[in-house]
C-alpha cells in the first residue's frame, strides 16, 4: 500500500506520498513519521491517531415534546458514518440545546457522552437532555417601523390564551408571527414584513420575551384595469394573499395565473401586466392591466403530416383541447400551451429516431366562417428515422461485457433515441453500483453510421475501484432479535459493496414494521479503502399502536325494528360506526404482532383478536395469522346473526400483483329475530357449526386500489366444509370476481366487474331440498352500494314467500359497468352505471330473463341504471349514487309484527322493491 519499501532508497517524495496515501484512507486523524539510523539505513516509524466515525446518535433524558425525539435527533445533524471531531460533538450538543431553548426550555442542559467502539472506529453518541421547566411567552417587544400602535401589534400575536400565557414552544411563536402578518394583511398593508429578531429566554423568571422586527409599510390595494375580476378571484389567483408577502415574483405569478384563467374563459390572446402606483402618502396600488382580446372558442384541433404516430397518440400528449359541452366550454388554448405541445410532440418523435422532426402549430381564426371560432392545425414534418448501426462499449474490465450488451435498449437496427441512451446509462451504472463499483461513470458519443440515416453509438465506462463489505454493523436494536435482523440483511461481509443490496436491506428492515427509522450509511465513504463497513442504525417504534375511527352509512339499510314485519324491502337509514384497533408490535422481538379490532355500528358489532406471524418460517412475503372473532350483525334485515369463529390463514405473495391464501376456519353461526315462515325456522335458522378449508388467489394490477383508472383485479376463492372438519352442514363454496379498468380518450375510464358465486351442498339429508340445505347466514346475499345498486343492502334474490324478507341463495351473478368521467375541475367526477344480476336459489336457476314471472319468482336478472358523483378526498372518493331499477321484484309480504305472524293475524300485502335507490359512502363501487 505504501510507496516506502524496505531495502529501497529513501526519498522525501516517497515519504510524502506515503503520508498522503495513509491520510486518504480516511482512517487516521493525524500522521507523523519518525526515523532513526539502523545499520546504515533508516528505520521509518509511522505514528497515527485514530479517526472516529459517527455511529449511533441517541437523545435520552426527560424528553418533553415539543420538540420530539426525532426533531432533537435531526438538530444534532451528525451524519451516520461520517468522520467525527470533538468540535462536531460540542456543536451538535449546542444545536440540541438551542432547539430546546427555542421551545421554551431556558435552562436546558445537554450533556454528550461518547461510547467508543474501538475495533470499528465508531463513536456512539448519547445526548442526555435535562430540559428543566418550560417557560411561558410574554408580550413581544416590537422593533423597527411598525406604523401601527405597537401595543395593537403585540396583541395581534395572541400569545395570551384563555388559560393564561401560552407555552413558549417554537410552533406557538411561529403561530404568533403568522397572526401578526395576518393582522397587517387585514389592515391592507400587504408589504408588511414581520420577522423574529430575538427570543429572550429568561431562566430565572421562566419567561420568554420575543422581539419582533416589523416594517409596516403602506396600505396596498389591488385592482384590475381592462377587465372586471372580482376581489375573491384576485385573492385566489394572486398569491400575495396566500403567501402574505409582496414581491415581483409573486406579482408575476399572479399575472400568469390571471392570464391562464382568462384563457380558460376563451380569451386566448389575453395579456396581463402589472404596475405599482403610489396614490397617497400611506398608500400604494397594484394595478393589473389586462388586454382581453377577442373571446374565442377552440372548435377543432387538426393534426397533419403524421405517418409514424396516430393522431390519437399525438393528441394524448397535447394540452390544447377543443371545447366540450360541460368542461372547457371555450376549449383550452394559449401560445404557451402551443409551445409546450410543440415541444412535447417533437420530443416524442426524437425519442423514436426522428432527429430532424419539426412541428409547427398554427391557428385558423373565424374557422368555418364563424366569428370567434378558432381551429388549431398541428403540422408535422417527420423527416427520416435514424436507426442505430452499431453500439460499442469501452472500458468494461471487471464485469461481463456480454451481460451488459444484452441489457441495452439501444440495439442495432432499432430507432436511435437519446431516451434509450439514458435508459442504457441507468442500467449500466445500476449494474456497476450493484457489483461494488459506486464510483463508476458513463459517457457516450455518436457518429454517423455507414449507411444514410444511421448512427453508431459508443459508450465509455470508467469503472473506478471495486469496493467490498468489511462487515455489517447494526446499532439501535433493543428488543428485536439479532437473528431476525440478520435474516433480513442482503449484504454480508466480503460481498461487493452493492448500493442496491444496501437499499434492499433497508427496505426489508422497514417492512418488518417494527422500526420507526432505519438509517443506512457507508462508514468513511470518502476514504480510499477497498473494504468498507456498512452501517445500519435502527430506531424501534413504540410497541403499541392505537387507532380510533368513525364513519357512517346512509342508504336503504334500515329494516325497521326486530319485531315489525312491515318493511322487508328496507327503509332509508343512517348507521354511524366507530372502530377501535390496538396493535402490539414486535412480539417476542420477532416482528410478530397481536391485533385487537373492535367495531360497533347499529348494523354490526364485532370484536376480533389476531396474531400475525410475518415471514413465516423465514419465507419472504409469507404471513400466517391466527384469529378469533365474535360478531353480531343485522346487515341482512331478515335476522340477527351471531358468529363465533376461529381461523388460521396463511398468505403468500407470489409476485408484486398476485397473492395466494389458504384458510382453515371453524365457526358457529346462529340467528335470532328471524322473520320468515315459522315452519322453515328449524331448517334454516338452527345454530350451525361450519368447519371449512378454503384457498384464494388474488391478482391485482390496478394502478390505484382506492380509485383505479387502469388495470385488472381478479379474485378466486374456493372452499369446502366437510364433516371431518367439524361441519354440521356440508357444502362447497366458490366465489370469483373479475374487474377491469380501461382509460380512453382523455380522463375517461370504462370500468366493469363480474362476480359469480356458487354454493353446492353435498350429503344432504333425504327430503331436504338442495336450496334449503344451507343455513341462512352461510348463503349469498347481494345488493347495495358495493354490489347491485338496483337493490337496497343485501336485498337481492329469493325471499321468504310468507314474510317477503330476503333469504339469500346458493348462487350469485352480478355484472357492473361504469363510465367514469370528469365533471367539474379536477376533483369532481361523474359516473354513469349499469348493474345487472341477482342472487339465485341454485346455480341451475341462474337466468338472464328480464321479466319476473310472478311474485314468487326471484330467479331473473334485475337491471338498474344510474348516475353518481365522486368528490376526491385523501381517503378515496366521496360517493353519492342514484340508481333506477328497471325491473325490480314484486313480492308478497306482511303488515304486522312477528307476534301477529305467529298468531296468523298479520295482513298479507303485495310489495315491490323501490325503483329508486340511493347510496352515500366513501370509495368507488368497485
Amino acid at each position, binding site marked *: 500500500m505504501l510507496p516506502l519499501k524496505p531495502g529501497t532508497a529513501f526519498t522525501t517524495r516517497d515519504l*510524502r506520498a506515503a503520508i498522503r496515501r495513509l491520510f*486518504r484512507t480516511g482512517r487516521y486523524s*493525524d*500522521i*507523523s513519521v519518525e*526515523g532513526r539510523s*539502523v545499520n546504515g539505513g533508516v528505520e521509518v516509524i509511522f505514528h497515527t491517531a485514530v479517526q472516529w466515525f459517527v455511529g449511533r446518535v441517541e437523545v435520552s433524558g426527560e424528553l418533553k415534546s415539543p420538540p420530539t425525539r426525532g426533531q432533537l435527533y435531526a438538530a444534532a445533524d451528525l451524519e451516520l458514518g461520517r468522520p467525527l471531531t470533538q468540535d462536531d460533538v460540542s456543536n451538535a450538543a449546542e444545536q440540541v440545546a438551542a432547539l430546546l431553548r427555542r421551545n421554551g426550555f431556558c435552562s436546558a442542559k445537554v450533556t454528550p457522552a461518547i461510547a467508543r467502539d474501538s475495533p470499528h472506529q465508531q463513536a456512539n453518541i448519547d445526548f442526555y437532555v435535562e430540559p428543566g421547566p418550560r417557560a411561558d411567552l410574554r408580550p413581544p417587544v416590537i422593533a423597527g417601523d411598525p406604523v401601527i400602535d405597537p401595543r395593537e401589534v403585540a396583541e395581534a400575536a395572541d400569545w395570551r390564551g384563555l388559560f393564561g400565557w401560552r407555552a413558549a414552544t417554537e410552533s406557538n411563536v411561529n403561530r404568533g408571527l403568522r397572526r401578526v402578518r395576518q393582522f397587517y394583511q387585514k389592515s391592507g398593508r400587504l408589504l408588511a414584513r414581520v420577522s423574529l429578531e430575538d427570543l429572550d429566554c429568561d431562566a430565572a423568571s421562566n419567561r420568554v420575551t420575543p422581539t419582533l422586527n416589523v416594517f409596516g409599510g403602506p396600505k396596498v390595494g389591488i385592482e384590475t384595469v381592462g377587465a372586471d375580476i372580482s376581489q375573491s378571484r384576485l385573492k385566489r389567483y394572486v398569491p400575495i394573499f396566500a403567501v402574505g408577502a409582496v414581491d415581483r415574483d409573486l406579482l408575476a405569478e399572479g399575472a400568469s395565473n390571471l392570464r391562464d384563467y382568462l384563457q380558460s374563459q376563451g380569451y386566448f390572446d389575453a395579456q396581463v401586466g402589472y404596475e405599482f402606483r403610489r396614490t397617497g402618502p400611506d398608500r400604494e396600488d397594484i394595478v393589473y392591466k389586462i388586454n382581453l382580446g377577442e373571446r374565442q372558442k377552440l372548435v377543432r384541433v387538426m393534426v397533419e403530416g403524421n405517418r409514424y404516430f396516430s393522431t390519437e397518440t399525438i393528441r394524448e400528449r397535447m394540452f390544447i383541447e377543443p371545447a366540450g359541452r360541460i368542461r372547457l366550454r371555450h376549449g383550452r388554448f394559449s401560445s404557451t400551451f402551443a409551445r409546450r405541445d410543440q415541444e412535447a410532440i417533437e420530443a416524442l418523435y426524437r425519442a423514436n429516431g426522428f432527429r430532424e422532426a419539426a412541428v409547427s402549430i398554427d391557428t385558423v381564426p373565424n374557422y368555418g366562417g364563424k366569428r370567434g371560432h378558432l381551429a388549431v392545425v398541428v403540422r408535422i414534418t417527420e423527416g427520416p428515422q435514424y436507426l442505430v448501426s452499431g453500439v460499442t462499449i469501452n472500458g468494461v474490465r471487471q464485469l461481463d461485457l456480454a451481460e451488459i450488451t444484452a441489457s441495452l435498449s439501444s440495439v442495432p437496427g432499432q430507432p436511435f433515441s437519446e431516451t434509450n441512451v439514458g435508459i442504457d446509462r441507468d442500467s449500466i451504472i445500476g449494474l456497476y453500483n450493484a457489483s461494488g463499483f459506486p464510483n463508476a461513470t458513463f459517457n457516450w458519443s455518436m457518429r454517423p453510421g455507414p449507411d444514410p440515416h444511421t448512427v453508431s453509438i459508443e459508450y465509455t465506462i470508467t469503472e473506478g475501484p471495486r469496493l467490498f463489505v468489511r462487515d455489517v454493523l447494526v446499532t439501535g436494536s433493543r428488543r428485536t432479535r439479532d437473528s431476525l435482523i440478520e435474516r433480513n440483511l442482503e449484504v454480508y461481509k466480503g460481498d461487493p459493496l452493492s448500493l442496491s443490496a444496501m437499499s434492499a436491506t433497508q427496505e426489508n428492515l422497514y417492512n418488518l414494521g417494527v422500526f420507526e427509522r432505519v438509517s443506512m450509511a457507508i462508514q468513511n465513504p470518502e476514504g480510499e479503502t477497498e473494504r468498507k463497513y456498512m452501517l445500519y442504525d435502527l430506531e424501534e417504534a413504540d410497541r403499541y399502536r392505537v387507532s380510533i375511527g368513525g364513519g357512517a352509512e346512509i342508504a336503504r339499510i334500515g329494516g325497521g325494528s326486530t319485531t315489525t314485519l312491515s318493511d322487508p324491502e328496507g327503509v332509508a337509514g343512517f348507521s354511524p360506526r366507530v372502530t377501535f384497533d390496538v396493535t402490539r408490535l414486535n412480539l417476542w422481538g420477532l416482528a410478530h404482532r397481536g391485533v385487537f379490532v373492535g367495531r360497533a355500528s347499529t348494523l354490526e358489532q364485532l370484536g376480533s383478536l389476531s396474531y400475525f406471524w410475518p415471514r413465516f418460517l423465514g419465507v419472504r412475503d409469507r404471513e400466517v395469522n391466527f384469529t378469533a372473532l365474535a360478531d353480531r350483525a343485522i346487515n341482512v334485515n331478515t335476522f340477527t346473526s351471531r358468529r363465533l369463529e376461529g381461523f388460521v390463514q396463511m398468505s403468500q405473495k407470489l409476485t408484486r400483483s398476485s397473492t395466494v391464501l389458504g384458510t382453515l376456519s371453524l365457526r358457529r353461526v346462529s340467528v335470532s329475530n328471524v322473520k320468515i315462515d315459522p315452519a322453515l325456522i328449524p331448517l334454516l335458522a338452527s345454530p350451525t357449526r361450519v368447519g371449512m378449508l378454503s384457498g384464494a388467489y388474488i391478482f391485482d394490477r390496478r394502478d390505484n386500489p382506492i380509485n383505479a383508472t387502469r388495470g385488472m383485479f381478479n379474485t378466486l376463492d374456493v372452499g369446502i366444509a366437510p364433516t371431518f372438519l367439524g361441519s354440521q352442514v356440508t357444502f362447497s363454496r366458490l366465489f370469483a370476481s373479475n374487474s377491469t379498468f380501461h382509460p380512453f380518450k382523455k380522463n375517461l375510464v370504462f370500468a366493469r366487474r363480474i362476480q359469480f358465486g356458487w354454493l353446492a351442498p353435498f350429503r344432504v339429508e333425504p327430503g331436504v331440498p338442495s336450496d334449503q340445505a344451507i343455513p341462512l347466514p352461510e348463503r349469498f346475499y347481494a345488493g347495495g352500494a358495493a354490489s347491485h345498486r338496483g337493490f337496497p343492502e343485501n336485498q337481492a334474490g329469493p325471499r321468504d314467500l310468507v314474510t317477503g324478507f330476503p333469504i339469500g341463495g346458493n348462487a350469485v351473478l352480478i355484472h357492473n359497468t361504469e363510465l367514469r368521467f370528469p365533471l367539474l375541475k379536477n376533483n369532481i367526477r361523474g359516473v354513469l352505471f349499469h348493474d345487472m344480476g341477482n342472487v339465485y336459489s341454485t346455480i341451475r336457476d341462474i337466468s338472464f330473463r328480464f321479466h319476473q314471472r310472478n311474485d314468487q319468482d326471484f330467479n331473473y336478472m334485475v337491471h338498474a341504471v344510474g348516475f353518481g358523483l365522486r368528490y376526491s378526498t385523501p381517503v378515496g372518493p366521496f360517493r353519492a349514487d342514484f340508481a333506477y331499477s328497471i325491473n325490480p321484484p314484486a313480492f308478497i309480504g306482511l303488515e304486522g309484527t312477528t307476534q301477529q305472524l305467529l298468531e296468523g293475524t298479520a295482513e298479507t300485502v303485495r310489495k315491490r322493491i323501490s325503483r329508486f335507490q340511493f347510496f352515500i359512502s366513501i370509495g368507488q363501487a368497485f
Partner: protein
Amino acid sequence: MGGAAAVLFGVLASQAVLLDRLAATAGSEVITLGQVLDEIRVAAFLNREAPDFSPASKRRTAERLVDQALISREMRISRFPEPAPSEAEKMLAEIKRERFPTEEAFRKALEEYGITESYLLAHLNRQLATLRFTDYRFQPLANGGQANSQAAVIDEQMEAWLKQARASTQIRFFEEAFR
C-alpha cells in the same frame, strides 16, 4: 527532494527524529510539514531573504499552500491545461540571468537555501499555472476597466472564490507542525 533526505540521513542518530508530519489538510489534499519548509526555502530564495522558520511563518505558508491546493483541485476538476515545461524553464533562465553571474553561483545559492533546481522549476511551474488559471477564470468578470482596476477586481473575485472554497471544504491545520 531526494537531496534533502540525504542531508537528513547525515543527522539521523540512533534516537528517533521527526522526518515529516501532517501540517494541514483540505478535503483529501494533504500538506506535510516538509512541504511547508520547502516552500519557505523557495520563497526566501526567490525573494532574496533569509528563510523564516518561525511558527507564524510556517502557519502562513501552510495557509498559502492550502489555497494553492484548492486552486489545483479546481484546475483538475475543470481540466485546465498545465503550462508547457519550457515556460517554467524560461522563467528560471531569466532568474539566473538577472541574479547570478555564473551557473556556479546559482548552484551555490540553491545549496545555501537547501533546495534543488528541479523543486524550484516545479514551484515556478505551479506559480505559472495558478496565474494563468486565475486570469482565465476571473478575467471575463473584470473586462472593460483599466489594467490596475482589472487586477484589483481579479484579486477581489479570487479572494471571494477562495473564501467560498474554504467554507465548503473541511480544512484542518495541525498545530503540532507549527511549534
